[in-house]
């Protein structure tokens, strides 16, 4: 009888090995069809029309002239906004569909919209714009603790709002056929994409078929069908033709989500030994017009004895925030780690030493201690480190910066069906999605491992809402969820097969295992039959069994867990004459429990580092206070790092019984949390002063050097 626990390390055939992603060839040869690539016969192209004003009353939306253009076949307007107010520039209030993309782009300008302009507010870094009562937390006695501290340092820190900038814009193709709706979206949430659409398009959910095999990036911004998804379905229904609706790049950057900004002042008190005695912070920022959750602080050092944090919301006429890879964490991490490093420098101590001294206040002291030593070794910390007071010679200064981070990563609810066919083929069906995290490959590894077959002997079908419901891919919850549900489903199916095989092998079900393409007696492997022979015993009836991940139960079984720690160290050069920051090297040491696929796990960490370099050095949604508009909704001025910008990167994954025995834990978020903090600390170490806000543009660096930051 197979049990669902993960096999012992020495018995594993596939788990933890470095496998190539299974869709690698399809993607690298351009054969993968993304939502943007779906072309249907007779398809129309839709264009969304966004408000040019950040705040205005919409008096009327008139599509008559647009509809009169030959080739324009569909028009939609937001009835709910007429007579009401738009809340940010780019807010989508109308759309048209036409027979070609060029025509749609041209005819959208014929839609007449009348506005009455109103006052807007887009400034987010000035606390005087804050509204409502600050959310605050107060533990211990901060005032007394500050009075007792040997060293007190105080600083201002901040991190601009950034956007997701998925390379595949948000959108979908929708088609009505035989009374049912077929949708090919770019989504992080296949199983639930259609939720709510049924009301908008008046079809039962069971008649809405969602299919997403490949998607070009989401990072937390593609959980729902969104307004444009609904518009696309409405236009498809209205025109009776398939409709492709993909956001143009400017709307994509303005309205499809952003990571809220965070600014703050922090006072840190250290005792004579470098132990953190007091942490006092005030933070603020914007998530657009909606809610704003202040970042978690003090970050990672959550258990500081005397801590006080007040967070305020600045409502702005900007597009609403969405989850952005590790929501809140990069902001909290930057502000906390920068403040602690500044306190260490004020005391004339090395920040790595101060971090190590205070690990007892974190949730993973042993993990961090181990990881910090490995990271320091990897980057050559001993030889390269210098105090902030002792700068390197010449106009190009060099420095190191350290940061630590944490994440949960518990597997989400997930269901999976595994079928064993009489011909020996095995197949899993699961309503999950592969965002580029190689989820498809990981599910295949778990399935093949469980039934004791080679990777190419099992098949995984995913990306459709017709398959068993699996959670949205966000918050590093997918790998735990799908690994557990697949493992449980495959174990259940295998046990049903073992029951059929047991009488033939003359032993009890409990004595059998599936391994190396056979069903065999565990204690006497020569008493065996091949997998195909065993499946042949099923006659004409395949076995299908379901597995369901219920987080608490899977955790008890040791299949999954939550709570990881990681550390990163950056080595940078800063030209003090031009203000240009160059990344020489970054190292990342990361824990994620049991590793399913070493190769793609490492890719996640490299990806996190690179996205981190991007937001540390370049990314910022720049808003114009006068017009209320985003000034850089394009890819020239909303700059992403290129290959040349990222420096040498090194990744080390924690392995061994201490980590492996915990089961599978998510990995997508953690590595993107620390880069901003590590790079900011490295720049401070290099030039001797803190550049308070990210991104670390030459202008900001020069201002800090000139004392005007």
């Amino acid at each position, binding site marked *: 009888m197979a049990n669902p626990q993960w096999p012992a390390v020495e018995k594993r055939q596939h788990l933890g090995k470095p496998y190539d*992603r299974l869709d690698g060839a399809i993607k690298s040869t*351009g054969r993968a069809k993304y939502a943007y690539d779906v072309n249907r016969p007779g398809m129309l192209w839709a264009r969304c029309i966004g408000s040019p004003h950040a705040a205005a009353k919409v008096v009327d939306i008139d599509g008559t002239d647009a509809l009169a253009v030959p080739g324009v076949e569909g028009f939609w307007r937001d009835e709910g906004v007429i007579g009401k107010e738009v809340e940010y520039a780019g807010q989508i209030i109308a759309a048209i569909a036409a027979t070609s993309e060029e025509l749609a782009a041209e005819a959208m300008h014929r839609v007449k919209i009348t506005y009455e302009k109103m006052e807007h507010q887009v400034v987010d870094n000035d606390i005087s714009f804050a509204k409502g009562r600050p959310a605050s937390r107060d533990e211990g006695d901060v005032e007394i603790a500050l009075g007792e501290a040997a060293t007190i340092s105080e600083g201002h820190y901040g991190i601009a709002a950034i956007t997701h900038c998925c*390379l595949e814009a948000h959108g979908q193709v929708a088609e009505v056929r035989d009374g049912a709706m077929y949708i090919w979206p770019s989504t992080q949430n296949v199983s639930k994409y259609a939720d709510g659409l049924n009301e908008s398009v008046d079809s039962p959910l069971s008649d809405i078929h969602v299919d997403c095999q490949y998607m*070009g990036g989401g990072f937390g911004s593609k959980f729902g069908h969104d307004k444009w998804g609904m518009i696309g379905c409405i236009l498809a229904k209205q025109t009776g033709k398939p409709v492709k609706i993909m956001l143009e790049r400017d709307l994509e950057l303005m309205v499809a989500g952003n990571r809220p900004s965070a600014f703050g002042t922090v006072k840190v008190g250290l005792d004579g030994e470098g132990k953190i005695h007091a942490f006092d912070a005030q933070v603020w920022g914007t998530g657009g017009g909606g809610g704003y959750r202040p970042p978690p602080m003090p970050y990672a050092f959550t258990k500081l004895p005397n801590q006080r944090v007040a967070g305020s919301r600045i409502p702005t006429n900007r597009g609403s925030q969405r989850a952005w890879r590790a929501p809140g964490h990069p902001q909290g991490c930057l502000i906390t780690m920068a403040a602690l490093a500044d306190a260490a420098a004020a005391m004339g101590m090395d920040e790595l030493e101060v971090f190590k001294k205070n690990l007892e206040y974190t949730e993973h002291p042993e993990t961090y201690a181990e990881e910090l030593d490995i990271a320091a070794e990897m980057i050559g910390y001993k030889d390269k480190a210098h105090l902030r007071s002792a700068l390197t010679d010449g106009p190009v200064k060099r420095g190191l910066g350290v940061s630590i981070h944490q994440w949960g990563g518990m597997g989400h609810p997930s269901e999976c069906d595994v079928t064993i066919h009489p011909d020996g083929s095995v197949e899993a069906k699961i309503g999950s999605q592969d965002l580029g995290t190689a989820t498809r490959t990981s599910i295949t590894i778990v399935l093949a491992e469980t039934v004791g077959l080679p990777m190419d002997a099992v098949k995984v079908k995913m990306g459709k809402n017709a398959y068993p419901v699996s959670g949205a891919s966000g918050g590093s919850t997918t790998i735990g969820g799908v690994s557990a549900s697949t493992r449980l489903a495959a174990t259940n199916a295998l046990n049903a097969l073992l029951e059929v095989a047991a009488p033939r092998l003359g032993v009890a079900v409990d004595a059998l295992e599936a391994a190396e393409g056979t069903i065999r007696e565990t204690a006497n492997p020569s008493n065996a039959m091949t997998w195909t022979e065993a499946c042949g015993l099923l006659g004409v009836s395949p076995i299908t069994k379901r597995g369901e991940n219920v987080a608490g139960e899977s955790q008890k079984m040791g299949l999954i867990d939550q709570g990881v720690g990681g550390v990163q160290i950056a080595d940078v050069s800063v030209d003090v004459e031009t203000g240009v920051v160059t990344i020489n090297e970054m190292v990342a040491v990361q824990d994620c429990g049991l590793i399913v696929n070493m190769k793609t796990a490492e890719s996640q960490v490299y990806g996190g580092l690179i*996205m981190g370099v991007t937001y540390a050095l370049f990314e910022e949604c720049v808003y114009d206070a006068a017009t209320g508009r985003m000034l850089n909704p394009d890819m020239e001025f909303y700059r992403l790092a290129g290959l040349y910008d990222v420096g040498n990167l090194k990744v080390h994954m924690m392995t061994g019984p201490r980590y492996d025995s915990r089961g599978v834990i998510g990995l997508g978020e953690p590595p993107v949390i620390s880069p901003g903090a590590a790079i900011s600390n490295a720049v401070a170490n290099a030039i001797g002063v803190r550049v308070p806000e990210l991104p670390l543009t030459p202008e900001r660096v020069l201002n800090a050097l000139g004392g005007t930051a």
Partner: protein
Amino acid sequence: MADEKTGPDSPGFSRRGFLKGLGVGSAGAAAAGLMPGGTAQQAAAAEEKSALLGPGETSITLNINGESKKVKVEPRVTLLDALRNRLDVTGAKKVCDRGTCGACTVLVDGQPAYACSMLAVEAEGRALTTIEGLGSPEELHPIQAAFIEHDAQQCGFCTPGFVMACAAFLKENPNPTREEVRRGLGGNLCRCGTYAGITEAVLDAAGVKGGA
């Protein structure tokens, strides 16, 4: 505005020159020759021809991966839109649509070019290679095999453009140093963060393991 009558020998600011300017994503990309070269005659022919076209649709023949394809386009239609929207050749991706990201990279007479920044009518008479013509899942081009081996792709949306740029780069620089790879592939952007894998893949495909 561009003077449509400006000839190839004139120092004037021609539309073609303007497009050429748009097509370059960074200094690194320029160094790697990211825009199609083309002879002066070709340029003159293209200008001559497009000056007589439009505004309605016109029928052109594009040579795509060695096959002639007839397609009707208005002169304003970009090569990228002609490929993706009219010929269902969707490997080249549309991301920025203005010559910044390289996701739409194809080869024009063997030189990498941003298909979003070139008109379809200009591509007539040129040999076009798209990702579909570089290799197939059954018969991978060495750079595609190296992308898989080094996991140089995550979501994969930037991948076709990157693969084309890498293939062209390797043709020009068969033995690149690590530094040359980093400088020469600045005309493509990836959001998922695959640059580490891409660098290794290019060095590996060039047979220069480790690089300089």
